[in-house]
């Protein structure tokens, strides 16, 4: 079962919710993996302090051109067909791997078999564990190489890892990047349920609307968590609650605004450790997620 944790706006508390929910579920005996899909700025490891077990480079396919086999100037079909300008004709076929989306069209198109599949490094995937030895909490983090523009191939590689042991049969929480464009779409792909984290501010609400549109476009079920509830105290900021009610969107949990919680997060601590009274909210959130999920996914998965 895959649960994505997303938001439109950055800094609303996606990672805080992901790490605490993952740790809480793990401590109740469930088999849990946290997949940190925010590969541009991954932060989950800061809170979970895992022991890293292995690290591997993640690659994306790029063309490798055999100039001796190339038909030459009379053909140039690969250059013509590439939509991303990753191939150019400069006396011979030149490749610009940083522009390549790895679609494979050039290899299909080449009549001479002169293009084979090579690869380039997108970043690294790190596998770690924390918690008890008999039921460890798994963390798999993607880290995009500095200067690399495209994060979706790395996110796809990370989610691919979730298909095999020891991750495949348990609960996978996906800590997603902010926004609504391709990195988010890639991170949400195939999730059974999505938790959208927002805060009761005009920016938080504006970006939540974008996130809701995204989930509706994908046709995937979701609910909302309101973080820092009450932070706009003394002002009538009921707009968020009114809107959620009008749109018939489930509010799965509310986390009250708290200076103590902000300090604990700043220091990189888990809230369920620093403020044990929050544990009940995570338990209630998990109940609400299961209650709101479409039936066929809700049962059974993740039991150790």
């Amino acid at each position, binding site marked *: 079962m895959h649960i994505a944790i997303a938001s439109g706006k950055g800094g609303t508390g996606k990672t805080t919710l992901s790490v605490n929910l993952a740790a809480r579920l793990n401590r109740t005996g469930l088999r849990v993996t946290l997949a940190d899909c925010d590969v541009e700025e991954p932060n989950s490891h800061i809170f979970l302090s895992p022991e890293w077990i292995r690290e591997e480079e993640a690659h994306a396919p790029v063309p490798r051109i055999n100039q001796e086999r190339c038909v030459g100037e009379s053909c140039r079909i690969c250059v013509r067909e590439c939509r991303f300008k990753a191939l150019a004709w400069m006396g011979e076929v030149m490749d610009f791997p940083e522009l390549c989306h790895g679609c494979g069209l050039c290899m*299909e198109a080449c009549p001479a078999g002169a293009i084979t599949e090579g690869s380039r490094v997108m970043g690294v995937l790190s596998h770690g564990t924390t918690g008890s030895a008999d039921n460890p909490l798994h963390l798999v983090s993607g880290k995009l190489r500095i200067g690399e523009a495209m994060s979706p191939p790395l996110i796809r590689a990370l989610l691919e890892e979730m298909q095999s042991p020891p991750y495949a049969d348990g609960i996978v929480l996906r800590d997603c990047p902010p926004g609504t464009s391709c990195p988010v779409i890639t991170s949400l792909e195939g999730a059974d349920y999505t938790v959208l984290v927002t805060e009761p*501010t005009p920016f938080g609400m504006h970006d939540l609307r974008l996130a809701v549109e995204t989930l509706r476009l994908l046709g995937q079920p979701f609910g909302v968590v309101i973080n820092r509830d009450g932070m706009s105290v003394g002002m009538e900021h009921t707009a968020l609650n009114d809107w959620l009610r009008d749109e018939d969107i489930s509010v799965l949990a509310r986390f009250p605004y708290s200076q103590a919680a902000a300090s604990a997060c700043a220091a990189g601590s888990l809230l369920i450790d620093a403020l044990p009274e929050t544990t009940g909210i995570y338990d209630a959130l998990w109940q609400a997620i299961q209650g709101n999920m479409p039936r066929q996914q809700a049962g059974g998965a993740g039991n150790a």
Partner: protein
Amino acid sequence: MRELLVISGKGGTGKTTITAALAASGPAKVIADCDVDAADLHLIARPHQTVTTPFYSGQRAVFDKSQCIDCGLCQEKCRFNAIADGIRHRPELCEGCGLCAFICPAGAIRMEERLCGEWYCSDSRFGPMVHAALGIGEENSGKLVTTVRTESNKMAQEHGVEVILTDGPPGIGCPVIASLTNTDLALLVTEPTRSALHDLKRIAGLTRHFRVPAAVALNKADIHSGLADEVRAWCHTENIPLLAEFGWSDDCTKAQLLGQSLVEYRPDAWLPVFEDLWQKLLALP
């Protein structure tokens, strides 16, 4: 012409709040919002007299089901899972590569231009403004960012303005790189949290990679004194000027609720602070 970009790596550190306050102070300028994916600056700038231009970029596959012979080749070959069972196209996953159209033996797929969003030239009380909205789930945010930057440069020339102030996107990927390349200065907004410091190091690495000078503004400086010291020490070691520190203040939320910048909400407290920051920004080489 000087282009000043406000970025942070981590989201939610206060980029837009600080950009809006800089917009309401300092020299005459053009305002640009390069966070095309989840733009918020317009909620404060409240631009008007907007000219809207559609943004076409890349292509998408269009399927003619009447020609389809259900061979499944397109689904098998697509590397982006953009064709689901039953040869059902999923445009939100389509990268517009054209592979399916190329290999389809029945000629049932063609490629067409893709409307990815729109961009706007507006007036605001802070000056002329260029902003944009990427369509939900769309590609090519980097190209839309580049369009916003090109248009803001044109606008600055038309208005004889020397400074462009840009609100940037979070992260270190494609839209950030498009915002950053060849800009004159990146103001990195951070906060004293483990996460923000971690992300500051990565975004600073990116500014070095693209040889863009950087400076730091430490927001919410009083929420953790130990980590604030770590940020200060790191700036010192890396030789990145720490130009401003702001304490945590509920003025930020209160101003936002009113659609105002900090400088407008409480000028006595905030105007001198941001005028001082402008002085320091403009004094950098």
